[in-house]
């Protein structure tokens, strides 16, 4: 790559942290880093300073394919009136507690 086309900024990475007690990784924010390994290092310094995590995932932001905000209607609205998809017709015994 010639200098002219070389991007000046490091690529953007999306950071996911598994909390101390949480079961799944949660998106916590993003940062810049030259590569994946350094992104993990930077995430450790930026997002786990107060003992927030036990595991870090980093994903290049450009590798994420997102749904378009304009598609909100066709994508999500059809499920609005399909109440039978929600398990609201079962009685949950009290002993189960919060589900």
């Amino acid at each position, binding site marked *: 790559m010639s200098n002219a086309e070389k991007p000046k900024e490091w690529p953007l990475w999306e950071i996911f942290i598994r909390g101390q007690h949480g079961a799944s990784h949660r998106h916590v924010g993003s*940062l810049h*880093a030259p590569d994946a390994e350094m992104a993990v*290092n930077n995430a450790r*310094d930026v997002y786990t*300073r107060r003992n927030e995590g036990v595991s870090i995932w980093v994903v290049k932001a450009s590798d994420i394919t997102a749904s378009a905000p304009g598609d909100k209607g066709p994508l999500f609205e059809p499920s609005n009136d399909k109440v039978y998809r929600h398990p609201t017709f079962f009685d949950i015994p009290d002993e189960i507690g919060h589900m």
Partner: protein
Amino acid sequence: MADAVDPLFEFALRMGDNCLILGQNVSAWCGHAPVLEEDIAMANTGLDLIGQTKMWLTLAGEVRGDGRSADDLAFLRDARAYRNCLLVEQPNGDYGQTLMRQFLFDAWHHPMLEGLQASSNARVAEIAEKAVKEAAYHLERSTDLVIRLGDGALESNRRMQAALDALWPFVGELTSEDDVEIQLAAAGSIPAAAEVEAVYRQYAGRVFSEAMLRAPEDAFMRTGGKDGRHTEALGYILAEMQFLQRAYPNATW
């Protein structure tokens, strides 16, 4: 030496002063590092080192038994009484120089602390156990950056090589051994200098070859810091660091 110096006191000062002076130097990047992520990482490293300073200087005060606290030792000693190695007091320079200084220190600090975990002195082993995890991360980070900048662009390689050339002469002092260390090593309180040096050489050699850097051969190795004979740089660091306590004795938050 005229009056009997407790080797453990000397050693605790050396460990503590290394952390204190490097921590103070590194902290100057806070708000000034080239990118936000590095700014936070560098400040974290500085804070880790100041935390370790507190443990070592507290131990030094206890060993000496003259009632001096870690703060007293940090803020009320003159340069001549400081025992840090010359490497850590070298100026920050550009960011490459700061990273190279950090790497050259971390690559020694980590195996040293690993060895100290097995110390026959329970207090030393306890401090080492706490510090070694931080040092492992510092080393991982500085290694990653030295490799990426060394084996990066032409300009970054040039700067990292210049930093290595400038700082290499201070490396010999890290692994050198004097009466204090020989006595402590014989008692099993600290690892033998040769053991730490072997790990250091092998590790640094591997990193430099991966980073496309060359350590100068037959460089004249400078020493003196461990005995309190420092370079000009330390005076400036202490002047800034100690100003408040000197100007307003016993001032507290």
